[in-house]
């Protein structure tokens, strides 16, 4: 179980780490926790694997990248092999088996226009076992805020 201090630090660090010279001191100042204590908590939870990464979260589009969410129907016997093949592409950052008719869902991002994403998807559609694969690009974003209170 996380202590009260750990909880405060982890919740705040998931929201926003200030972009200043001493970011962990600044984060701690708002919580009444010392810089050393903030660093200790973050290191411990990183080591435990609860924290995957501490770094920048970027707006993909503003960096000149295009991306989409793809949903595919893959023959169950081929699902793992197809997922592994698709996951080899660095621009695929998330890939999940999900319940339902469309059983494989993944994100694809490439530098440049959506045409590059579509070309990549066209190559995935040719993998044996892929019965259909749709691209569902974003029309409007309403929320991106991953914060899991510990």
């Amino acid at each position, binding site marked *: 179980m996380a202590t009260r201090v750990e909880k405060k630090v982890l919740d705040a660090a998931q929201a926003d780490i200030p972009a200043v010279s001493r*970011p962990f001191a600044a984060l701690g100042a708002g919580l009444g926790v010392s810089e050393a204590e903030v660093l200790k908590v973050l290191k411990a939870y990183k080591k435990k694997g609860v924290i995957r990464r501490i770094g920048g979260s970027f707006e993909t589009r503003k960096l000149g990248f295009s991306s989409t*969410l793809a949903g595919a129907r893959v023959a169950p016997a081929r699902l793992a092999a197809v997922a592994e093949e698709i996951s080899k592409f660095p621009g695929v950052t998330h890939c999940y088996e999900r319940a339902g008719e469309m059983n494989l869902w993944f994100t694809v991002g490439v530098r440049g226009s959506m045409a590059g994403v579509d070309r990549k998807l066209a190559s995935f559609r040719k993998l044996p076992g892929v019965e259909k694969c749709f691209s569902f690009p974003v029309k409007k974003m309403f929320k991106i805020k991953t914060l899991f209170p510990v």
Partner: protein
Amino acid sequence: MTRKQAIVRALQGDIPLEPAPFKKLAAGLGLTEEKFLGTLGELKSRGVLRCLRAIVRHKRAGYSANAMVAWKVPGNRASSFGKAAAALPAISHCYERLTRPGWPYNLYTMVHGRSRADISKVVAGLVEKTGVKEYLVLESLREFKKTSMVYF
């Protein structure tokens, strides 16, 4: 590579867990800390950098039930539905996306909870609030890959 690209590259991975992490990252790029922070501030104000933060593996933080819920929302109600969904803490992502022949679902929400019952409760609440009754709960069964984008 431009300075901005170099800074994005430095921040797309892990920042060092030490008192002055940007000083160290700047030194690695042959920049002063001041220049590094200046560009960082610019990226942030232009919305290129959303924020610096800790990314938690939600399953390890106790959120073992996760589902993507795809909703069929009439076009003229997409915006009000999106806002209602975005207001819920259990929903981390909400997007309106294009539909495809045979796939009429246009709103997507990522729902997280400590149990399946948590997910059902969130979904039922949204149904009641919005009146949207056609949806699919696409529970995640297996994670093949989850990482952060490498840009440069």
